[in-house]
């Protein structure tokens, strides 16, 4: 049986560490656990986890938050930001979060494999019943959400040792 640490905490720690280190941004639990990012404000990206479990992790946030993060990280004014830079930022954030998440989740002697992030278009894909969501926000109350999808990945949440 795969040994691992609590899944929910691993993701919370990974998100906090990434946003604080890369963008000096504190992340909190959203005050509304059912909050949905309006479609007009939504940007998102996803990557696949292929080993030792199979699943997908999606990162969604408001366009406002992404623009602010991009401006902070690249030290630019908002009007100087390009779409390519914003796309790269959200992908690199997910890449970093996913790696930290898997490192925190698994035991030290367990290697893993994650794919490359791909930005999504339009609405987020419908979640499976078993999916896990992290509804978060910044200190400025800008929403940031993560989703873990995939039976074997999500099953770790129920069987933490």
């Amino acid at each position, binding site marked *: 049986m795969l040994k691992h640490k609590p899944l929910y905490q691993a993701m919370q720690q990974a998100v906090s*560490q*990434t946003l604080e*280190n*890369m963008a000096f941004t504190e992340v909190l639990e959203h005050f509304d656990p059912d909050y949905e990012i309006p479609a007009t404000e939504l940007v998102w990206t996803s990557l696949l986890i292929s080993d030792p479990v199979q699943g997908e992790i999606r990162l969604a946030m408001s366009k406002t938050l992404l623009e602010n993060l991009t401006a902070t*990280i*690249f030290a630019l004014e908002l009007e100087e930001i390009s779409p*390519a*830079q914003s796309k*790269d*930022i959200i*992908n*690199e954030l997910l*890449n*970093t979060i*996913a*790696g*930290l998440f*898997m*490192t925190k989740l*698994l035991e*030290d*002697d*367990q*290697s*893993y*494999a*994650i*794919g*490359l992030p791909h930005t999504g278009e339009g609405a987020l894909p419908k979640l499976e019943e078993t999916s896990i969501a992290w509804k978060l926000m910044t200190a400025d109350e800008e929403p940031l959400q993560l989703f873990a999808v995939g039976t074997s990945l999500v099953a770790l949440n129920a069987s933490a040792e």
Partner: protein
Amino acid sequence: MKRIIIADDSATARMFIRRCLEIIGLSDAEYVEVENGKEALAAAKEKMPDILLTDLNMPVMDGETLLKWVKASPKLCELPVIVITSAGNPAKEAQLLKLGARQVINKPVSPPVMLKALQDFLDN
């Protein structure tokens, strides 16, 4: 002047790495930024760098394959390779060190971590 190759498909990541290197004292280095392992190999063969920093997850040629190619090349085998990755943990680190990586650093990078990893390189 030191020549440094940074291989990562993310412009953000390359910027972070370069910023850390400049902060720890390498602001005068010649930087070559590439998006995958194949471009890194080409740049290294064109003019031997002093150090190569590479991500693992890249399209076309990933960092592990790049490391294997570098260590198998008579011309490049002595090139110090630092792996900077989001996909690392102690198991992966051990595997990469066995393949010949000088150091493995986990993202997100920071100047203190970079300084510690490159201290002997800076001293030389």
